[in-house]
């Protein structure tokens, strides 16, 4: 697979994946799959972490041995319910919070030792926008730019206006941040990440609190950034958002990374079930069990079981052979939503 493909094209490659059903969902298997990829990206991963963990002073283990592997050029959706450790992980990635154990690299540079070298190439939005309310949008960006050791002051004005223009805030450049709407604040934070060309952009919940219009705008912006070749790492608690813009996903649950891989790999982790509609459910379920299908369930005149790698057409023949009157036969794969709920547990906000 080509990791530099824009996400939309990437999704079209469903058929090209080898038909391997993953038994268990784990970061390790997904990682192994990534390494085995024959068309591995030329450069190393944009983000890689090994055993990244954070235990806060209260004793709470916020992040538990997270092994991230974000390929360059990917739009990586970092999913998980609120409080699952996404923001703490992002803070560790950016060197704001020191990990209790584990290590990580950004763009091939070890962090936090190489922070001063690598962070200028990384744009970020962490836990919502934050600026000085008494300064204008333009002044706020000038402040951020002044803090950048590697930025050229001679081009500051031009870059600031360029970034404001990109997020559609040029008209409000001289307005005080205090007077910005939530969507404008969010876009200003993204503009801060675009003050200079970046190789990696880390966005923590960029659409949080936005109305549908604002959400669409941010989503379009993220797509645009990604098509320029910038790796995008975007966290969200909304499945719909990730599904629309991401090529890769990592799913967090209570501090652990419970899945990592492409969206398609995630889809295929859902074990397909066979559903048989019949007036003789007892015999049908006996046949399914005899064949060796797991988790046989009977509900009214419907019998279902996990299909595994058994072919549905063979199953149909077996049923008919056993004299089961088959009214309907269907292979059902769980939706992404079902998969997320399964991965992250109850209470996951899938609808937003």
């Amino acid at each position, binding site marked *: 697979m080509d990791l530099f493909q824009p996400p939309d094209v990437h999704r079209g490659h469903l058929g090209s994946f080898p038909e391997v059903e993953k038994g268990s969902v784990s970061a390790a298997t997904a990682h192994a799959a990534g390494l085995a990829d024959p068309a591995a990206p030329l*450069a190393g991963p944009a983000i890689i972490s090994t055993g990244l963990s954070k235990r806060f002073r209260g004793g709470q283990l916020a992040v538990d041995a997270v092994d991230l592997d974000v390929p360059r050029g990917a739009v990586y959706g970092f999913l998980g319910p609120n409080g699952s450790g996404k923001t703490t992980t992002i803070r560790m990635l950016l*060197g704001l919070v020191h990990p209790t154990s584990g290590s990580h690299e950004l763009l091939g540079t070890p962090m936090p030792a190489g922070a001063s070298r690598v962070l200028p190439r990384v744009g970020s939005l962490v836990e919502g926008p934050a600026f000085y309310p*008494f300064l204008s949008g333009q002044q706020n960006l000038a402040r951020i730019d002044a*803090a950048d*050791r590697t930025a050229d*002051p001679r081009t500051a004005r031009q870059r600031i206006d360029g970034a404001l223009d990109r997020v559609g805030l040029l008209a409000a450049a001289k307005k005080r941040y205090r007077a910005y709407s939530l969507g404008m604040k969010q876009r200003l934070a993204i503009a*801060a990440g675009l003050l200079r060309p970046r190789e990696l952009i880390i966005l923590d919940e960029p659409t949080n609190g936005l109305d549908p219009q604002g959400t669409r705008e941010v989503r379009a912006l993220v797509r645009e950034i990604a098509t320029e070749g910038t790796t995008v790492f975007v966290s969200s608690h909304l499945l719909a958002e990730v599904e629309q813009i991401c090529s890769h996903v990592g799913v967090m649950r209570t501090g652990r990374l419970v899945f990592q891989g492409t969206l398609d790999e995630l889809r295929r982790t859902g074990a397909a079930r066979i559903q048989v509609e019949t007036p003789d459910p007892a015999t049908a379920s006996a046949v399914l069990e005899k064949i060796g299908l797991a988790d046989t369930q009977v509900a009214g005149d419907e019998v279902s079981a996990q299909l595994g790698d058994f072919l549905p057409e063979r199953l149909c023949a077996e049923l008919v052979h056993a004299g089961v009157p088959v009214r309907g036969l269907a292979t059902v794969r769980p939706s992404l939503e079902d998969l997320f709920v399964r991965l992250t547990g109850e209470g996951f906000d899938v609808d937003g």
Partner: protein
Amino acid sequence: MSTAELEAAPAAAGAGPPPAALSWLRLLRSELRLVFRRRRNLALLAVVAVIPVIIGIALRLAAPPRNGGNGGGPPFLDQVAGNGVFLTILSLTILLTLVLPLVVAVVSGDTIAGEAGYGTLRYLLTVPAGRTRLLGVKYVSVVAFGLCASAVIAAVSLICGVLLFPVGPVTLLSGTTISLADGLLRVLFVTLYVAGAMAALGAIGVAISTFTEHAIGAIAALAIIVVASEVGDNVPQFGAVHPYLPTHWWTMFDSILRAPVDTTTLLHGLLSFGVYILIFGSIAWARFTSGDITS
């Protein structure tokens, strides 16, 4: 195709990052702008500017010139009527008891905690501004503000003193009379000494500021330290610790107003400021460079 290639090209073509000293100055300029353009801070400067005017007018209206008497009020009170230059010393002495330290407390307590409170700290650090560099720039701006506030007090007092009282050769506390120019030079040294005291206080404020994300907490803590130290300094039973109190040497600038200058006391005071800056600067650095930014 590769993003690395795309990025490498402009970096190689450009002149490279600006020199470290220039980038440091750029951040300092940004910080000074933030401090000196902020309405709250300008209001604080206005307050310290108004108080000497009030003192001057009150003295002019209330006290007809008295010769050499000691009314038992604050030191230098009696000298003002005889020579307007002393209004600077009187104002600095009065403002040093609470108002000036409070002003410095507001600005220094706000340094890190204020950024943390706004959430801008995480953005500055991911730029990356560099923790040591940011702390250094913040402290320099606090020192600059303390110096500015002290200078405003001295300048406004001097103008008022000239307008409201007779001005001439300055009679020092030791009885010697020196020329007006010499007197003004000594006033300048007093102002710098006070700014030094405020720099020491600012170091404590910055250190406290690294421990919280509530600026008001840091400001209040520093104000309490000032008051507690001043109270302690006035309790004779605590005599053994007096020289170590942060406020003890603040008003010792009267050594400058003697001939010869009491350098022993003066150097003790400056040493005290230096030690406080060193200790609390180290605390601030250790805390800020190792702590987690969760604001």
